[in-house]
């Protein structure tokens, strides 16, 4: 993938890709961010990926080491832990050609979702995207991929369970908590047990 070289705005190591994506969204960057997960570096591997942006909204993602783009590309550099993020600004016209490479495009909220696991930011990014691009966020395959990831869903659910219990104490609702809510992932369909 060819992206015109941009003007480096800043380069720093961050704990969370969400912070970078949020800042880029707020400043409505047109350009690209190079992500280099630091853990991989320690292991002697190079992992590096690029996400391009138009007015703060992600357009393309590309794993420069594996040479894979799009959502699969994103997953290549979605590594937890500190990441060096180098933010570059590029003239919008200069990026236009690169942005036409259909197979590297990602829905606006996808980098926040995949790189940072941040649904709220994904949603905010989608809301900030032009109308035509918001539709991409509703692409059915993203929903199906989300639902197919049973581990990720169990994580959402177990976090919500813990949060519900913690807040019940805060709100004095302790004594109405159900005793029998187990840790099982599956809910049996059919008659329920109240």
């Amino acid at each position, binding site marked *: 993938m060819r992206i015109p070289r941009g003007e480096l705005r800043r380069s720093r190591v961050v704990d969370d890709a969400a912070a970078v994506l949020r800042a880029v969204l707020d400043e409505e960057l047109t350009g690209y961010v190079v992500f280099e997960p630091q853990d991989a570096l320690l292991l002697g591997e190079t992992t590096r990926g690029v996400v391009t942006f138009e007015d703060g909204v992600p357009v393309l993602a590309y794993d420069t080491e594996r040479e894979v783009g799009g959502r699969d590309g994103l997953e290549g550099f979605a590594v937890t832990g500190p990441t060096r993020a180098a933010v570059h600004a590029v003239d919008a016209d200069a990026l236009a050609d690169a942005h036409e490479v259909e197979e590297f495009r990602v829905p606006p909220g996808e980098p926040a979702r995949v790189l940072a696991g941040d649904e709220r930011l994904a949603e905010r990014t*989608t809301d900030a995207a032009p109308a035509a691009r918001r539709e991409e966020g509703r692409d059915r395959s993203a929903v199906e991929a989300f639902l197919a990831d049973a581990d990720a869903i169990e994580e959402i659910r177990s976090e919500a369970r813990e949060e*519900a219990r913690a807040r019940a104490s805060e709100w004095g*609702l302790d004594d109405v908590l159900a005793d029998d809510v187990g840790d099982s992932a599956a809910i049996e369909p059919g008659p329920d047990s109240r």
Partner: protein
Amino acid sequence: MVEAFAVASGKGGTGKTTSTLALGMALAEDYDVTVIDADTGMANLLFHAGLDDADVTLHDLLIDERDAAVSDAVYERFGMSVVPCGTSLAAFEAADPGRLRDVVAELAADTDVLLLDSPAALGSKSAVLPVVLADRIVVVLQPTVPSLSDGLKVQEYAHSYGTDTAGVVFNRVRPDENVDAIAEQAGRYFGGQTLASVPESDAVRAARREGKPLLAHAPDDPAADAFREAAARLDVRDGDGRDVAERFKSAVAPERI
């Protein structure tokens, strides 16, 4: 008999209020239905039900010194008993969420089905109470990742309080979205059944502008048909109003957030 359903979504914009009133009107064909706007912080049911100018609302019942009778806040509209909530921020702040329990218990004594239009949030006691008080929840989802994710969260909160899932309504479904595959996958995580897939419809906005529930404004619209289908699939259970009242009484310590 009475069964209390919280109509919940976790996320705004899924059409929860539209769904609550549509399910209410459809269920009112067979049952005595009472609809309560339990979204006390961001009430909007009154606009959907032509009750913008209601004198007494749920807020008055939740504020100690207002001294209003529950029946003063009940309006017979569209074949249902409707309890709207006011939109004043001051009233919301003065309201004691714990009193919702007594209001709901009193209303439960005299109806078949209670529908609680619940807040699209989980961050406060007043937002969570409808889900705590209900027998079961109906989760209103859009076929999007954020909506499914928030729906899962609200379901976990409900289950933590022993409130089961009656079913899921996929709402605002666009023509190019085939919800069947998504519903089948989602069924692994959501309890109950898929009640309906409701198509996105201009009639919903028009109904809101006119201050009428969808089923009153456009009874023949495909979205209205889908909501009737959802109501028909909802297996309303016999409950004892006194049990509900008792449970509520023992449930919630009446305290401010």
